[in-house]
């Protein structure tokens, strides 16, 4: 059903003129922004257990609906997760305590979504231990509703990535949680105690090989503030020989149903295809997303989706371990993928252990660029004196628009070159200026907030989607935007990157286009909605699209 809707114009900004050879200049502005607290995560010089290596995530979310993205960062023990309120002047204020979010433990991931459809974005934080679901009380505080929602777990689990999704399109956000493996301090061997506790002749934290597998969890939203674990009935529990970390949701085969991709460590990655009857089946091997081009299972960490070649289909990027290539899977147009890493020019960065990652158009030229953050799992690796490091720089790939990427990290500003043991990375435009910033959670350090000092010349638009029949966060809604003769796609998604949450709004670089010709939205409810612009419409603004009644 095609319906028209009103474009709600929010923030009007100056139009820009594109420049042919824009060079980004990313700076880490975390300190100036007030993000000065360190986020502990196990040992900084050596690590005894694998649980010290995997945390933690980062999130951009607008918890108080003031139109400005706030920041949430997850912490390991010795600190607390923190919520920072965006003051609107480039600075953030720590509001953790007053918002009821102080919590300690082996925090891993974070994902956001309005699970109770009250118009305010809620949070789930995953733990080695027990996850916590925070209900947002109208932007004035958060309430731990884990038990009330039925999310108390029957045993200690190593929960990692998470995502809200509406897998049955009933208008209520369900919840997917990745489980890495089974771990406990009492029985896990110490570094060097068995063959899986060594790295290049160094005794290191054991695993994941040698530690028991676990399985992933799908919770169905009952629509009354509670969830039911449907992992077994839905088939989510079936893949049982994978070490899962990052999760990426999306409708990869454009059948109107949200699928789930899980980046797995040292084991084949999983692509749960949604069969539309409440069940999923892992089709990753045949669809080409389980292995690399040679059929090898790599050490997947984070995952991101984006249409890098502009063919209208979402492609998948996965970050991997050192001595492995990153993996770029090109969607062939039907939810089947080819490994395009080599062809796209991403084969050279093999010394990095990659984590958080995301497609974003940093220069607003309408082509999806890509950034990933890095850092080895073992601090001990620095003793080897090789070119693999515990703390390392990020990688920024510029999309040249021909299905190819160029690594411009060395000339993209000091923020990209700073060395950290980075994990989660979230992408969002926190100052609504049309440039996407990147929030990075660094182990045992304050976070990084990567912001461009210059302004790219291309035009842009931010689309904020609001579900009515569909879930209020519009998670799962797909957009096709046409401007300047180019068509781009986007999808609202919870979770993604590495254990992180990016802006729920969709950012599109528009290059020279000074008007948007058409915005088509496929809502989870099944509605197709078209906004057709009759006259020149200024770009460079936030546009709210509300689902038709």
């Amino acid at each position, binding site marked *: 059903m095609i319906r028209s809707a009103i474009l709600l114009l929010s923030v009007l900004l100056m139009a820009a003129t594109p420049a042919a050879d824009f060079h980004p200049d990313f700076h880490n502005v975390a300190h100036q922004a007030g993000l000065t607290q360190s986020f502990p995560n196990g040992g900084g010089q050596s690590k005894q257990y694998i649980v010290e290596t995997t945390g933690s995530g980062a999130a951009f979310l607008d918890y108080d609906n003031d139109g400005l993205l706030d920041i949430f960062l997850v912490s390991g023990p010795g600190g607390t997760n923190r919520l920072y309120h965006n003051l609107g002047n480039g600075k953030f204020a720590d509001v953790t305590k007053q918002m009821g979010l102080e919590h300690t433990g082996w925090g891993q991931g974070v994902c956001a979504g309005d699970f109770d459809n009250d118009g305010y974005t809620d949070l789930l934080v995953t733990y080695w231990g027990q996850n916590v679901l925070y209900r947002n009380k109208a932007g004035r505080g958060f309430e731990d509703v884990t038990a009330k929602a039925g999310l108390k777990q029957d045993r200690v689990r190593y929960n990692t990535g998470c995502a809200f999704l509406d897998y049955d399109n009933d208008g209520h956000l369900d919840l997917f949680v990745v489980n890495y493996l089974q771990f406990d301090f009492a029985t896990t061997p110490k570094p060097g105690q068995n063959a899986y506790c060594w790295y290049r002749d160094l005794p290191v934290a054991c695993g994941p090989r040698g530690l028991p597998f676990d399985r992933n969890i799908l919770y169905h939203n009952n629509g009354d503030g509670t969830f039911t674990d449907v992992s077994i009935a839905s088939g989510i529990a079936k893949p049982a020989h994978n070490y899962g970390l990052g999760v990426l949701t999306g409708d990869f085969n454009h059948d109107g149903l949200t699928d789930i991709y899980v980046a797995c460590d040292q084991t084949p990655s999983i692509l749960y295809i949604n069969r539309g009857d409440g069940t999923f089946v892992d089709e990753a091997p045949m669809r080409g997303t389980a292995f690399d081009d040679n059929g*090898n299972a790599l050490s997947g960490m984070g995952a991101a989706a984006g249409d890098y070649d502009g063919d209208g289909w979402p492609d998948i990027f996965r970050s991997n371990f050192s001595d492995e290539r990153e993996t770029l899977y090109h969607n062939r147009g039907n939810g089947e993928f080819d490994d395009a890493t080599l062809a796209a020019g991403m084969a050279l960065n093999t010394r990095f252990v990659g984590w958080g990652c995301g497609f974003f158009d940093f220069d607003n030229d309408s082509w999806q660029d890509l950034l990933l953050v890095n850092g080895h799992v073992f601090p001990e690796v620095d003793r080897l004196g090789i070119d693999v490091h515990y703390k390392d720089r990020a990688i920024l790939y510029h999309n040249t628009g021909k299905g190819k990427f160029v690594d411009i990290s060395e000339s993209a500003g000091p923020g990209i070159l700073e060395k950290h043991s980075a994990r989660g990375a979230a992408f969002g435009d926190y100052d609504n200026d049309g440039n996407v910033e990147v929030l990075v959670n660094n182990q045992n350090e304050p976070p990084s907030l990567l912001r461009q000092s210059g302004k790219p010349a291309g035009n842009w638009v931010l689309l904020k989607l609001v579900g009515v029949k569909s879930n209020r966060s519009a998670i799962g809604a797909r957009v096709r935007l046409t401007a300047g003769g180019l068509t781009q796609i986007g999808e609202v998604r919870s979770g993604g990157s590495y254990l992180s949450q990016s802006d729920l709004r969709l950012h599109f670089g528009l290059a020279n286009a000074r008007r948007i010709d058409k915005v088509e939205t496929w809502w989870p409810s099944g509605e197709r909605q078209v906004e057709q612009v009759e006259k020149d419409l200024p770009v460079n603004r936030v546009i709210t699209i509300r689902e038709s009644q």
Partner: protein
Amino acid sequence: MRAISAILLLAPLAAHGQQDSLGKVAESPQRRAFLALAQAAGGHCVAAMPDLAKQFAETPEPELRRLAGLALSQCDLAQGHYDEAVPVLARLKTLYPGDADVLYQTARLHMRAWNDTLFEMYRKAPSSYRVNQISAEIFEIQGRYAEAAAEYRKAIEKNPAALDLHFHLGRALLLQSHSPEDLGLARREFEAELNLNPADAVAEYEIGQILLTGQDSAAAVKRFERAASLDPAFAEALQAVAKARMDAKQYGEGIALLEKVVRLQPGNESAHYSLMLAYRNAGRTADAAAEQAALDKLRQAPEGEFTDFLKRLGDKAPQQ
């Protein structure tokens, strides 16, 4: 360990027999065997070896034959008779495949022979390029690639015409660093190897891989094609050509090449994976499913002691 334990268990019995009259011992082949085993365990190999050899050759008793063979090979090693130990251990491996004691003894034989030969090489030909080459290979095994590259360079300086040195240097350069700049250095060495030996298919293949990494797929494919023509059974090269054909949507040719690789190497998981995707891309769904089944079967670790060990460690079924 099992052999040594058995010998120790037998030792008192044989020693007791030794105290009987020699005539009685001589009458019983089994007693002679026990005596020989005890003598070998006590280090009296010269006395023991004739009877051990006889028992190993003649006894119908499998366990006694196994113990006699192990003791005989141990005595050969102890006396530096590597050439004589070789056929004994070869026969033991045939008779007792997978036996840990036999495999251990065989490994010891090769290790001893390697050490002695290496020592001799360093002593008698210390300035030979072969000393640098073997040193480089040892460094490679130890993962010390920079030192390996340095030794290969010394070897090349001494004998610029020797085959394989440039190839190995190129490989060490690739392993020593993740820097894209080193790809060029490595390629130069593979090219130098080809100058010495234009029929080196693996050097051609390595250059193809470097070109592919550097985005020059057209030039890479030519190298892969040449590698495959130099060695028509070179699975990796055939697979690389097949992938190029598939990328060019020449499905028939790509699939034919991959089917050839799978015939050549039925256990090659990578080839099965490529063939599965090739069938998929060509729309041959049933064939793709069959390949996936073959791949799944291959990916299941073979049964055995090590697999059981892994299962105990990591393959526990998850709790629900």
